[in-house]
C-alpha cells in the first residue's frame, strides 16, 4: 500500500500531439480515485503512465515516495484490471490467479492458500478449474479482479473494468468493486467514462478534458460546486440545463424569465472585460411545480410558465420536459459534451428543459404549467472560458449572493 503522486506529469508524442498536460494529483494511501472524462481526454493514458505501460515524457511519478518514471511495470508492484479482462486463455482460473505469484517465485503452498483466499472473496471457488472461455462476462471480470488482488500490490489500477458488462451486472459489480476496495484498503485508481460510476465509487473524482485536469474533489462537491461549464455538464444525470442569458440592467434576461442578480455577481459583471452574455445552468431537481411550494420557498426562487412536452413518471418523482423559446446556449464545452453523448446533430429551434418535479404534481402533457426554480442553486458561466461565476471560495452561492 502506498500513496501515488503525479507531479506535472505529461505525455506528448513525437509528432507533437499532447495526450496529457501537466497533471498534478496526490492520491493518498488507501484512497479510491476515479479518473473520468469523455473519450480521448487522456484518462487512460494517465493510467497507463502510472502502470508503466507508457513512457512519461514530462514530470515525475512517485509511488510510496519513490520516483518510478523509469521503472518497468514489474518493479512498480501495482496490479491492473483491463477493460478487456485480458485473461490468459490457455490457463485455468486457478492458473490465471496464480500467475503473478508464480512469477514472484512464491512456494506452492503459499500460492495455493492465497489463490483460494482470493477466490473465496470473489466467490470464484467453484470455477477454479475452468478455462476463461467457459465463463460468463461477469465471472471473467471477477477473475481479472482476483488476479489483481491475489498478490496484495501497492495499488490497483482499473481501466474501465465494468464497461463490457450489461447494465444490470454493472450495477451489481459496482458494489463488489466498492466493497472489495474498502475491505482491502488498497490505493485504487479507476478510469471510467461513466459519470454514474464516478459518482458512486470514488472517494475523489478527477475530471479530465483534452489531457488536462478540470476539477478534483469528492463527487458531491463536484456536483454542487462545479468549477466550470464542462464539469457542470459532465456530472449529473440527467445533466444540467443550460440556457442563454443576456446581462441587462443588473438582471439576466433568459427564456425562463428575468433572473435578479445579487451584489457579488453584479460587481463581477461591472468589470471592463466582463461578458455581456452568460450561460445559466439549472439542475433538473432545482425546479418544482409552482402549485406545490409554500411561500417561504417561493421567495427563494422565481417562476415561469412553459408548455409541457413529455412527462416521465418514475414513481418517486416525475421527469418533465418543457419547451422554452429563445437562443440556445452555446460554448465549446457544451459542443464537446454533446459530441461525447452523440447528440451533437440534434439541433431544433428553442430548447428543451429537463425538470424533476415531485410525484404529487398533477402536470400533464400538452398543458402549460407554472414552474418554479431555486435561485440559490443556479450557476452562471462565462461562455468564453467556461468559468463558473457563482463559485465563491470554491462554493456555489447562486445568483443572489451579496
Amino acid at each position, binding site marked *: 500500500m502506498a500513496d501515488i503522486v503525479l507531479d506535472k506529469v505529461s505525455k506528448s508524442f513525437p509528432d507533437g500531439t499532447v495526450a496529457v498536460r501537466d497533471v498534478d494529483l496526490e492520491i493518498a494511501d488507501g484512497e479510491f480515485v476515479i479518473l473520468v472524462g469523455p473519450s480521448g481526454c487522456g484518462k487512460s493514458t494517465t493510467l497507463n503512465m502510472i*502502470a*508503466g*505501460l507508457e513512457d512519461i515524457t514530462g514530470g515525475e511519478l512517485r509511488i510510496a515516495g519513490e520516483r518510478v518514471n523509469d521503472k*518497468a*511495470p*514489474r518493479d512498480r508492484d*501495482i*496490479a*491492473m484490471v*483491463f*477493460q*478487456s*479482462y*485480458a*485473461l*490468459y*486463455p*490457455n490457463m485455468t482460473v486457478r492458473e490465471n490467479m496464480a*500467475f*503473478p505469484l508464480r*512469477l*514472484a517465485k512464491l512456494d506452492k503452498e503459499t500460492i495455493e492458500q492465497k489463490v483460494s483466499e482470493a477466490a473465496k472473496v470473489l466467490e470464484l471457488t467453484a470455477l477454479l478449474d475452468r*478455462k*476463461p*472461455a*467457459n*465463463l460468463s*462476462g461477469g465471472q*471473467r471480470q471477477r477473475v481479472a479482479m482476483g*488476479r489483481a488482488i491475489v*498478490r496484495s500490490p501497492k495499488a490497483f*489500477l482499473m481501466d474501465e473494468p465494468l464497461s*463490457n458488462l450489461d447494465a444490470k451486472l454493472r450495477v451489481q459489480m459496482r458494489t463488489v468493486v466498492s466493497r472489495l476496495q474498502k475491505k482491502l484498503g488498497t490505493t485504487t485508481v479507476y478510469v471510467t467514462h461513466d459519470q454514474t460510476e464516478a459518482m458512486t465509487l470514488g472517494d475523489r473524482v478527477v475530471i479530465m478534458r483534452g489531457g488536462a485536469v478540470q476539477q478534483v474533489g469528492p463527487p458531491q462537491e463536484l456536483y454542487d460546486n462545479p468549477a466550470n461549464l464542462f464539469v457542470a455538464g459532465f456530472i449529473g444525470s440527467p445533466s444540467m440545463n443550460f440556457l442563454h442569458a443576456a446581462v441587462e440592467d443588473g438582471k439576466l434576461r433568459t427564456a425562463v424569465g428575468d433572473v435578479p442578480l445579487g451584489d457579488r455577481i453584479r460587481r463581477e459583471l461591472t468589470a471592463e472585460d466582463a461578458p455581456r452574455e452568460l450561460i445559466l445552468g439549472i439542475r433538473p431537481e432545482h425546479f418544482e411545480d409552482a402549485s406545490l411550494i409554500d411561500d417561504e420557498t417561493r421567495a427563494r426562487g422565481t417562476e415561469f410558465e412553459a408548455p409541457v412536452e413529455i412527462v416521465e413518471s418514475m414513481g418517486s418523482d416525475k421527469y418533465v420536459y418543457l419547451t422554452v423559446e429563445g437562443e440556445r446556449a452555446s460554448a465549446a464545452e457544451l459542443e464537446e459534451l454533446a459530441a461525447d453523448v452523440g447528440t451533437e446533430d440534434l439541433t431544433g429551434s428553442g430548447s428543451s428543459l429537463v425538470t424533476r418535479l415531485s410525484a404529487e404534481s398533477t402536470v400533464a402533457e400538452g398543458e402549460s404549467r407554472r414552474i418554479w426554480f431555486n435561485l440559490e442553486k443556479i450557476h452562471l458561466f462565462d461562455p468564453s472560458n467556461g468559468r463558473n461565476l457563482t463559485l465563491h471560495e470554491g462554493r456555489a452561492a447562486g445568483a443572489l449572493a451579496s
Partner: protein
Amino acid sequence: MAAMDTTAAAKWRWGLLDVVVVVFALVPVLWIASLSFKTTGTLTDGNFIPREWTLDNYRTIFSTDQFVRALVNSIGIALIATTIAVVLGTMAAYAVARLDFPGKKALVGVSLLIAMFPQVSLVSPLFEIERSLGLFDTWPGLILPYITFALPLAIYTLSAFFKQIPWDLEKAAKMDGATQGQAFRRVIAPLAAPGVFTTAILVFIFCWNDFLFAISLTSTERSRTVPVALSFFTGESQFEDPTGAICAAAVVITIPIILFVLFFQRRIVSGLTSGAVKG
C-alpha cells in the same frame, strides 16, 4: 449472414463437387500406390486394382542402402531446417507484429523479395559458393538454403498469427510481474502455438519435397535426399524399368508427411484465444 442453402438439390450439387475435387486430387496418389503393389509383369496392364499383389517392390527399395540412407538424410535435413526456421521465424514475426523498430519495413520487404526470387537462378551461384566453402554435398549445405527460403514463409504466416493475439494479454503479463521474455514464453508463445505448428508443417513439406537444391548441391549418398535418390533408381539390369520400385519409394516418402501433418494437426486447436478478452 445468409442462411446456408440446405435444399436437397443444393446438397447434391455440393456433394458432386466435393467428389470431383477429391477424386481429382487422390486418383494419382492411389494409382501410384496401386502400381507399387503390382508385379513386374502386370505393371502395364492398366488395371486400377492389381491382379497379383506383391511386396517385392518394397523389399527391393529397403534392401538397397541407397534408399535407406536417403531417407535418413531427408528426415534429418528437413527436421533440422524446420526447427531452426520456425524458431527464428517466431522471433522475427513477433518483432514484426508487435514492435516498432527501425528497418522493419525493409525486413518485411526483403523477406518478401526472397520468397519471390526464382530459386533456379540461385542454383549456380550457390553451387560455386558451397564448393569453395566446403559445404557442397553436406547436410548444412542443404539446410542453409532451406532455411533461407523457408524463413519468409514462416515470418509471414506467424506474424499473421501474432497479430491476432490481444495486445492486452502481454500488458497484463507485464503488470503481473513478467519480464518481456517471460511474457513471451509463458503467455504469447502458448497462444501462438497453432500458428507455430501450421508453419512447421508448411516448412517441413517445403524441405521434404525440394528437388532442385537437393539435386544441384549433392553428389553422393552422404547428403542425397529421397526425391533425388528416386531419380537415381535403376532396374536390376539396364533393360528393366524400375517403375515398381520408384512407386514404392514414392509411397514410403509420403508416409512421414502424412504422419507429420496428423501429429501436428491435433495441436492446431482453433479458437485457442477465445475467452481472453470480451469479443
